[in-house]
């Protein structure tokens, strides 16, 4: 019988019901869109924040603290332990592989350059390289300094990783010191071993890299005789903000706590996972960058929650307006059903059926609209699409029903107060 009443009641009052459904759709679509973006925010914002640079630095275990003066690493030549180049791909195979936004290996050494035999750090690295990742759906990954330091700019050209030519990019300070420009050749002297590199670009970073010379990783490996070796890896990872649990000593954790910690993209859990796949390595989080990223994500999430709350409140107000009008129109009907014996719970059940129908309809349509809205937000803000997550659908429907219930609470309370004696005599 409720079904018949509901169907017919909705049919005759379709304008009011449509208004209520639209109010729910507005709230539900915003919730659906923001929930979709929220679930992708770490990856999206992480990518945006990769301009902060790497947030994990991987060094060989037991490696000494580097001795750096004016950006020149004087301990490079004495380094005893190295990481293996053939293991680098494994960084994209860890539990949080999708959170690894980029990485780049480095092998640095101090060389003599120019007519005055100036000491300069020569760094071999990958610039923009596609590597194979076996047994993964994504098959390959783009890595290199461009993936972790997108703010670097080069006058001239970047070195092509695939061509393996004897080329160099000079830091702008080195180029100024050596009076070199693009197209010149620079002579490198490493313990009496000489190579010549053609200058293809001048690097501007605003940092210590401007005091270095960059070339292919393999060129430095050949020069130093350290084939397949790298001295450090810088990794840019999308992380979740650290809370008190993240900072807990893992040796003091229970098994369940450890699993929870390991399966959360905290900077330390990602660093540990990298240590697990790179032999004899220490993966050290760069605290300043990690905490800046974490705080930024935390603030964005807080802002999204506040927007969602405002959307829910506005939507509930819309529903309340529509339901109040609807109940005013139905005063006589409510009086009649009370007069023919409907008890409080039966009267409430009549409205609950309607609320459920409005909430579910508004929730489903709102979810669909929200998916579209999330894509608009994704494209406008992050320049990429937002992945659809099915968990958002039931969440949106539940919240939509909640919105309708909150919005209907006061009108229903008023409906229950309707005195049949008064409405039936036409007042």
């Amino acid at each position: 019988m409720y079904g018949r009443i509901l169907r017919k009641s909705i049919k005759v009052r379709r304008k009011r019901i449509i208004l209520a459904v639209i109010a729910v759709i507005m709230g539900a679509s915003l919730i659906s869109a923001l929930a979709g973006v929220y679930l992708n925010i770490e990856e999206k914002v992480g990518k945006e924040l990769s301009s902060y640079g790497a947030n994990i630095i991987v060094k060989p275990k037991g490696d000494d603290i580097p001795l750096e003066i004016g950006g020149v690493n004087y301990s490079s030549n004495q380094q005893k332990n190295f990481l293996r180049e053939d293991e680098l791909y494994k960084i994209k195979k860890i539990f949080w592989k999708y959170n690894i936004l980029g990485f780049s290996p480095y092998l640095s050494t101090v060389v003599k350059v120019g007519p005055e035999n100036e000491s300069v750090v020569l760094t071999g690295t990958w610039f923009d390289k596609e590597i194979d990742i076996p047994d993964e759906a994504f098959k390959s990954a783009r890595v290199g300094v461009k993936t972790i330091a997108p703010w670097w700019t080069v006058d001239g050209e970047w070195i092509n990783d695939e061509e393996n030519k004897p080329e160099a990019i000079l830091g702008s300070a080195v180029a100024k010191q050596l009076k070199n420009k693009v197209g010149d050749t620079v002579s490198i002297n490493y313990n009496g071993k000489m190579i010549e590199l053609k200058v293809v670009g001048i690097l501007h970073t605003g940092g210590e890299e401007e005091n270095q010379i960059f070339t292919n990783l393999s060129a430095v490996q050949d020069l130093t005789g350290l084939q397949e070796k790298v001295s450090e890896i810088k990794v840019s990872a999308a992380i979740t903000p650290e809370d008190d649990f993240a900072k807990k000593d893992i040796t003091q954790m229970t098994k369940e706590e450890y699993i929870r910690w390991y399966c959360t993209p905290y900077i330390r859990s990602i660093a540990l996972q990298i240590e697990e796949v790179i032999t004899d390595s220490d993966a050290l989080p760069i605290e300043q960058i990690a905490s800046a990223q974490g705080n930024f994500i935390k603030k964005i999430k807080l802002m999204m929650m506040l927007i969602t709350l405002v959307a829910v409140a506005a939507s509930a107000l819309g529903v309340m307006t529509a339901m109040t009008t609807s109940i005013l129109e139905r005063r006589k009907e409510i009086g009649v059903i009370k007069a023919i014996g409907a008890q409080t719970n039966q009267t409430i059940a009549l409205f609950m059926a309607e609320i459920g129908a409005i909430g579910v309809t508004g929730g489903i349509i709102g979810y669909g609209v929200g998916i579209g809205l999330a894509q608009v937000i994704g494209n406008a803000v992050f320049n990429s699409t937002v992945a659809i997550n099915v968990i958002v659908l039931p969440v949106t429907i539940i919240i939509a029903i909640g919105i309708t219930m909150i919005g209907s609470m006061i009108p229903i309370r008023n409906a229950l107060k309707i005195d049949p004696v008064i409405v039936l005599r036409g007042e």
Partner: protein
Amino acid sequence: MITTMNLSKCYNEKTQVLDDLNIAIKKGEWANIMGPSGSGKTTLLNILSCLDRPTDGSVIINGTEVTKLSQDEMAAFRRENIGLVFQQYHLIPYLTALENVMLAQHFHSMVDEKEAKDALELVGLGHRLDHIPAHLSGGEQQRVSIARALINQPAIILADEPTGNLDRANGKIILDLFKKLHTKGHTIVIVTHDPEIGTMGDRLIRLMDGRTVDEKITA
């Protein structure tokens, strides 16, 4: 069956609608209540219907002091014992005649479409089951209202000006239905301005300023 004791109803200090009213209506009796406007007829009927409460005094129906019941208990008592017929019919406008009758079944217990059809057959509307109130005449709407009042087999039928909005022919049909119900043993109380109805039934109670001024046996 129905007894009121020292029944009073005041809406404020100045408006006393019922004043120390004592009436008793026996089981199976048809009592008509007449009186000028403002004499308290409808207020009395509302209190007997468990829709309203008196300011003082008590009402005992079928051995239950209904004035002591909670709002929900009054609703439950009403749907078990009382069938209401209104002057304005008060049907749900978007439900058919059949559904309006079934609605009373729904709030009482279980919906039984055949029983609801039978009730409409009884009031001569077997051919109008799927019509909405707007497509029925006033007399037909009142007959649907009577079918709705009867569907849960109440012992008591309370009617407020049941023919007040009807022409003579339709009024006669309705009164014939009440006669039929009376012969079946229902206790009937009708509030009316119509002197013709006043001559029907078993007893006429005249009210004036909330008090009984005259009571006579009409049967």
